[in-house]
């Protein structure tokens, strides 16, 4: 009896494992064939690269976003002179996986950069991103001087009417925004939209002129990222965005991706809220961006796929 039960469950388990027999997947795969592709994909429970692979497949593959010959920019958060385990910067493995994927899709070049807060060479090095991106075949661009930025006008901005944006973004064909999910003392949260502070030269202007509005304003930029991928593998839940020790970090093992920057930030915020209470009204750049018709906070109105590994 026992043995039969064991065999049965082992067999069923094996099958379930092989075909990923989970309720969401069943429905998802049914509708996938008939309907439009996913607007937002959330992945949980895996390593950064594995989660990225599952996520991008559910978004329809990288070739949907990166065409052959495209000049691509992958923009992680490399703001701080901190090692990966402090979760102050985007996970280097994730950055490398995205770079490789873009190149395999036929990108003519992939550029990685960030306008750092701490001394830039230390940030590039200690975040592990420079080495990982280079090894994956990317070009790591300099962003520490005003000469690397070009004036761009933001006609839809309320407070931020123009900004000096990094030349590689201005000159590229497509760009992918890869922030890390963190708490933030001033902006409350830092996610996809807040990550735009690393593509501009003069951040101080934002802080002095209604930070939340400026974050939303920059997201009205005509050249938006084709994809936003929020790294929530390690999440800094307190003392952000720089953090003090690894005590500030939880191993959350999640990843969110979407073409809709407002939606992906909303999803990540709701996920974060489970660790530390965070009201969407307080992270007011999200709703300000929604009012500017950048995207939607209504996750029920878009097609969301949730994947657990």
């Amino acid at each position: 009896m026992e043995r039969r039960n064991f065999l049965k469950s082992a067999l069923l388990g094996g099958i379930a494992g092989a075909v990923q027999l989970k309720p969401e997947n069943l429905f998802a795969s049914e509708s996938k064939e008939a309907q439009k592709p996913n607007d937002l994909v959330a992945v949980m429970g895996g390593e950064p690269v594995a989660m990225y692979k599952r996520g991008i497949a559910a978004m329809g593959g990288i070739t949907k976003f990166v065409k052959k010959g495209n000049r691509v920019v992958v923009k992680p958060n490399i703001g701080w002179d901190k090692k990966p385990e402090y979760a102050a910067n985007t996970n280097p493995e994730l950055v490398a996986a995205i770079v490789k994927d873009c190149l395999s899709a036929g990108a003519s070049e992939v550029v990685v950069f960030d306008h750092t807060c701490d001394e830039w060479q230390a940030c590039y090095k200690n975040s592990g991103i420079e080495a990982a991106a280079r090894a994956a075949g990317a070009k790591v661009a300099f962003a520490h001087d005003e000469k690397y930025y070009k004036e761009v006008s933001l006609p839809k901005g309320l407070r931020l009417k123009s900004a000096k944006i990094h030349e590689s973004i201005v000159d590229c064909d497509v760009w992918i925004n890869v922030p890390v999910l963190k708490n933030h003392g001033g902006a409350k949260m830092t996610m996809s939209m807040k990550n735009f502070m690393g593509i501009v030269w003069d951040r101080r202007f934002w802080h002095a002129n209604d930070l939340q509005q400026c974050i939303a304003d920059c997201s009205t930029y005509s050249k938006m990222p084709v994809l936003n991928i929020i790294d929530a593998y390690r999440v800094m839940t307190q003392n952000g965005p720089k953090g003090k020790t690894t005590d500030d970090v939880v191993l959350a093992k999640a990843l969110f991706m979407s073409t809709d920057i407002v939606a992906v930030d909303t999803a990540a915020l709701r996920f974060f809220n489970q660790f530390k209470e965070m009201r969407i009204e307080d992270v007011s750049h999200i709703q300000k961006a929604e009012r500017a018709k950048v995207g939607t906070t209504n996750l029920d109105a878009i097609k969301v796929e949730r994947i657990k590994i």
Partner: protein
Amino acid sequence: MYKWLKWGRVAVSLAITILITLAFLFFSNRDNLFFSKLLTIQFVPALLGVFTGSAVVLASLFILVLLFGRVYCSTICPLGTMQDTVWRITSLFRSKKSKRFTYSTPSKFLRYSFLVLSGIPLLFGSSFVISLLDPYSNYGKISSEILSRSEQFIHNVLSSIFPDTIFFRSYSQFIALSFFFALAFLILVILMSAFRGRLYCNTVCPVGTTLGLFSRFSAFSPVIDKESCNKCRLCISNCKSECIDIEKAEIDASRCVACFNCMTVCKKSAVKYKYMWGKGGQKTEKPVSGRREALLTMGLMGSFIAARAVTKKYLSSPKETENGIAPPGAISVSNLKNNCTTCQACVSACPNGIIKPATGEYGINGLLMPVLSFEKHFCGYDCNVCTQVCPNGALIPLSLEDKKLTQIGQVRFYEEKCIVVTDNTACGACDEHCPTKAITMVPYGDAGLTIPVVDRNICIGCGGCEYVCPAIEKAMLIEPRAVHQIAQKPKEDKQEKIVVDEFGF
């Protein structure tokens, strides 16, 4: 044989000068401390750092001089090598006649005046005068202000040719006083050496004068053999120290820098580098001149070292007030003023470019000493480079752990100037940059805003908040700690482990 000695000296002196120079250049100095560590072989740094790890170097330098004469001046001192190079180069444009040196009488009064002038303030805890005269430190200033800026210019020309592989080095601070001092000094030394060889070394340089007092008793000295000398004066015309008196057939050992030129050129082999100890006679025949000066100098040195040993204990009197923030490792502004000779090794080494030569922050006797400026950047939390490169012990080496707790200043928050108060909008730039969380954000009003609060006990004065504060009149300012303190450790913020299995939406 003397040819080998001479060319050996030239090779060693060029090598040392290049290595010293590399400690001030960006490309060689950015990722390692190798060249900076070599700076400790210089005389004044070794003297000032005698209680901070340089005793062996200082003793070795003295032994070297006692054995071989002023070889320090002709091989180790970068300014000496620079002067020889200037003479060489300018010789190319000179007529044969004006290429020749002649004998000159020593300007004893000037020499000892400069020595006393720079020595006495040292006894009373000020390295200011010696910082203006020390050959190494001035070579440092020339390297930092002129060579390093030229390097930056070349770097940036290259970066415009290869924009993808060579980055642009942002032009940051330019302190006119420091630049023009270095330039004026450079021009002065070039002129002196172009016309009179080692004139600086033998009239102005306090190191040259000091070593000259010892070199007269050195084991090996150049001597003229009266028998074989035919008075052709070839040695004189090649003596850059102008110290060969052919009439008396004497070489002034206090001015001779042991360059070996005279021995190399003498066709009669009349000038010899002779072992003098134990041969009695020769030396004591006539009274050694300059005994009084020797006593004076040794008295100065002795009392200097004694004064050091005593004051080391209470260098930092807690009453001091200063307007400048001294770099980590300085212990106190008075320790800095005691030991810094403004060589700018720290200025060149700071990866964040925030150390600048002071223009009055420490008062007159602190001019050109390193002071922090948070205008363009702030002090890196995970960096202790400046504390590692100082050869003088003006900045003592700090481990990263110690540096992270060294309170060089303390923040003061002016709430009424804060953006959150004046504009009623979110900011938090200061909190964002604070590495110890001496600044935290607390709720402000009902609109979900947060405002900074500061805990000055945790603050180490890195200046991240001051640098980044976007208010027109800064709401965060670092007040200097004239005597550096140890900050309280950052609070530990353990958080309970929350297991999350759902996406939350």
